[in-house]
């Protein structure tokens, strides 16, 4: 198994290399550049041309690419053209926000989805089951921004249960208990929204797995041995039914950093999704390439993690 993991990690290097080449060329193909947006009657076009020259944007793409990759190999991803700070600092700030928000959402998601899935499966075709199925379809069908706005208006502006914008209240100093609580408090509503929107897959997988499992031999064996129904569900069926969910757990973990443009925009929560979109719009090359590389790496890592997790959870699967 270890051999396989090492091999997979080694394969990532050429994969990422090809990705970097592709994204670099494609980013440069986009019309405009980071300085296009500076166009005003007050700005001097000659100065803009000078800045382009200084930034090396007039060099052939392969020269720029080599410069970039040499610096990147030394851990220097360059400066954001828009925010004028180091890309690593910028992504660091946003990634931290997004990571915590996603983690809280995933926790809430499983807290909601697992009980619902289990109950729906166990009490199949009852009224309860129908409600769960209905809930799944509604949350699956409703667009993210609609639900986010509804929740924000009700729980934020009407009931005042949660803060309405931002990731933290400005009155707390970094690192204090109040600061940490404020961060968590600001995360709850966006996290809950994300969670509610994402439950469908887990609920449906779990429900159908449980329904299938109910008629399988090992369940009947267990029942005929006289094991109580509750115990059959909690010990036998539940564990087996979690397999498909474990299958994409790896992606769930690495997906924590992806962020959601809708949630971040509506809740005014600075995160990765928004950063990615705005860097594309403003042609912030250094940020675009860094983010695509990061997302690419995470996708590869996610699939590896999923395989590893599967081999741990399901002894029948072996990584060879």
């Amino acid at each position, binding site marked *: 198994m270890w051999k396989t993991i090492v091999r997979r990690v080694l394969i990532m290097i050429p994969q990422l290399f090809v990705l970097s080449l592709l994204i670099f060329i494609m980013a440069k193909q986009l019309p405009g550049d980071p300085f*296009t947006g500076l166009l005003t009657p007050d700005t001097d076009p*000659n100065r803009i041309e000078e800045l382009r020259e200084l930034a090396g944007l007039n060099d052939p793409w392969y020269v720029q690419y080599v410069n970039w990759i040499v610096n990147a190999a030394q851990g220097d991803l360059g400066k954001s053209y828009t925010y004028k700070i180091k890309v690593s600092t910028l992504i660091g700030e946003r990634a931290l926000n997004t990571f915590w928000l996603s983690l809280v959402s995933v926790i809430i998601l499983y807290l909601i989805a697992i009980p619902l899935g289990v109950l729906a499966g166990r009490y199949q075709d009852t009224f309860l089951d129908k409600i769960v199925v209905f809930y799944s379809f509604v949350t699956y069908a409703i667009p993210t921004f609609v639900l986010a*706005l509804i929740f924000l208006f009700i729980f934020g502006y009407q009931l005042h249960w949660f803060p309405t*914008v931002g990731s933290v209240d*400005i009155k707390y100093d970094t690192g204090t208990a109040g600061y940490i609580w404020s961060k968590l408090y600001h995360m709850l509503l966006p996290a809950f929204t994300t969670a509610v929107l994402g439950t469908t897959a887990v609920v449906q997988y779990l429900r159908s797995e449980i329904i299938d499992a109910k008629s399988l031999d090992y369940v009947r064996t267990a029942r005929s041995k006289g094991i109580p129904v509750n115990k059959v569900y909690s010990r036998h069926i539940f564990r087996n039914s979690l397999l498909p969910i474990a299958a994409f757990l790896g992606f769930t973990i690495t997906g924590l950093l992806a962020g959601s443009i809708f949630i971040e925009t509506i809740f005014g929560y600075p995160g990765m999704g928004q950063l990615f979109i705005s860097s594309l719009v403003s042609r912030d090359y250094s940020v675009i390439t860094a983010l695509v590389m990061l997302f690419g790496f995470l996708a590869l890592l996610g699939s590896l993690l999923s395989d590893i997790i599967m081999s741990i959870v399901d002894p029948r699967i072996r990584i060879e």
Partner: protein
Amino acid sequence: MSKKLWGLLALLLAFMLVLAACNGDEKETSSTDEGTKTEDTTKSEGNEEGTEEEAEEPAAEDSDALFPLSVENEGDAISGGTLKVAMSKDEPFQGIFSYVLYEDAYDAEILAYASNSLFETDGDFLLTDEGIASMEVDQDNNKVLVKIREGVKWSDGEPLKVEDLIQPYLIIGHKDYTGVRYDVDFQNIIGAVEYHDGKADTISGLKKLDETTLEISFNKLSPAIFSGGDGIWTYAEPSHIVKDIPVAELVESDAVRKNPVTLGAFIIDKIVPGESVQLVANENYWKGKPKLDGVLIKVVPTSSISVALQQGEYDVAISFNASKMEEVKDFDNIDILGRQELYYSYLGFKLGKYDYDNSVVVTDVEGSKMGDVKLRQAMGYALDVEQVAEVFYNNLRERANSLIPPVFASFYDDSLEGYTYDPDKAAALLDEAGFKDVDGDGIREDKEGKPFEIKFATMSGDDIAEDITQFYMQNWKDVGLNVTLTTGRTIEFNSFYDKVQADDPEIDIFMAAWGTGTNPSPAGLYSKTAEYNFSRYSSDFLEETLTNIDSPKAFDADYRAEQFRAWQEYMAEQAPIIPTMYRYELVPVNKRVKNWNIDYANPTELQDIELVSDTAVKSTK
């Protein structure tokens, strides 16, 4: 079953309604608003026109204006209090709190509360003597004396010195400076280029005459100096803080990012990057300590700004999107102030090319498809701009008649008729010019009777942008012109300007907009050497008038105004660029705020703002 189905349908319908309502918001947020960005080099406060709709206590002078410019709310002022400002915006702010370095207008709006501005301006954005500094122009010797008031202190208590006036020049001129402000204007200061090239340790044109006077020598002076142009820098930098920070590191330093030292009414106290800024009253403010304890500025997403205002969460909203007017107009807890922006949108005709090797416009009127002036005029008359302003923008825009926004009262020519909607006149002009429908299909052919197609480039944006594009194309079709979109669809902002700047042969006409900034001189957009002269139109008369506007003779205000008028009339007549719309900027103010004024000429003094209650006022509607 059918009951369930109905329930489901009802629910779906409800969601769709919400969806439709929200959809508009979403789209607007992503639009770059016709791709204009304004960057004021002087102060960005105030206006001239103003008045009632539902007259509160309007500072009414001009009955044409749609909104009041100021509001006074009843009640006794509480002592202190924090003014809560919502900055309506869907992305984090950049947070570059330095006048020499910032690029984004939002940073400038935050900075305005802490301001390092040396001068105040009047209604025409001309520098006055009321501010920290006053200016004396020695036209004959191309010199300017800047004198600072005694007793002005930085927010950290350090007195303001002449060195603080010199410091920004040393930063902008430095070879490591990577901002846009080292430009042609800046190089007009004697010695700036030598300093930039490393041939001198300092800028020879800057001389400290005594403890309060700075003398600046220029290569040449024009009336633009009074608008803060020609290279003069109208802000101070705290030299005792920034002189030891290498210029290349300044933009990432704490002196810019975390605790900038400033001269204004409030001091930046705390920043959550990209989200909010807490400012506290500046004890050392030269006009006296502000009555408020502080100001809290928060970024509020455009999707929820209306609800936030309804709930009284904020006292003032800045960069408020005028298209939200419909949502907030019934709220009884706010007053909506409005002023015209320094902005115009326009229709441009390609009449030549830019020779990038020699930096000069090569006009070829004869050889251009749009070369016939009557054709251009007809295309202007054919557009029903009035209806677009009314239907699509709820009258928050209005038809423009001139390339100078009316805000510049002394330079604006209100007698210009402009291109009011008149399809009959358009048709008559086209007939006269020889564009006739030869084959009877309702579409005009060119003068030789060959098929005539006009390629139109316009920017993509929100849904409205698409609708308006279709509307205008229909307008042209109504007078028999076959106008088709360049690339077959509306074009994304970056791509649009790439094509327009490169004089793409696929573009015959284009629509865009300019934020004009506070210096009204049109040379940067319409002269023979201007890269931004996108229509590539130039003529001897035009060059002469533009030169006159900024000539030494134009130090005489009447002469300058006269030349401005001549220029506006000439442009209207030749129509290489036809202005289409002016735009209003709205500022909702909660009833809790005692006084607020957005008149460009006479804005609220920040130290005088007061609140009349501890808690915000909610809307009952």
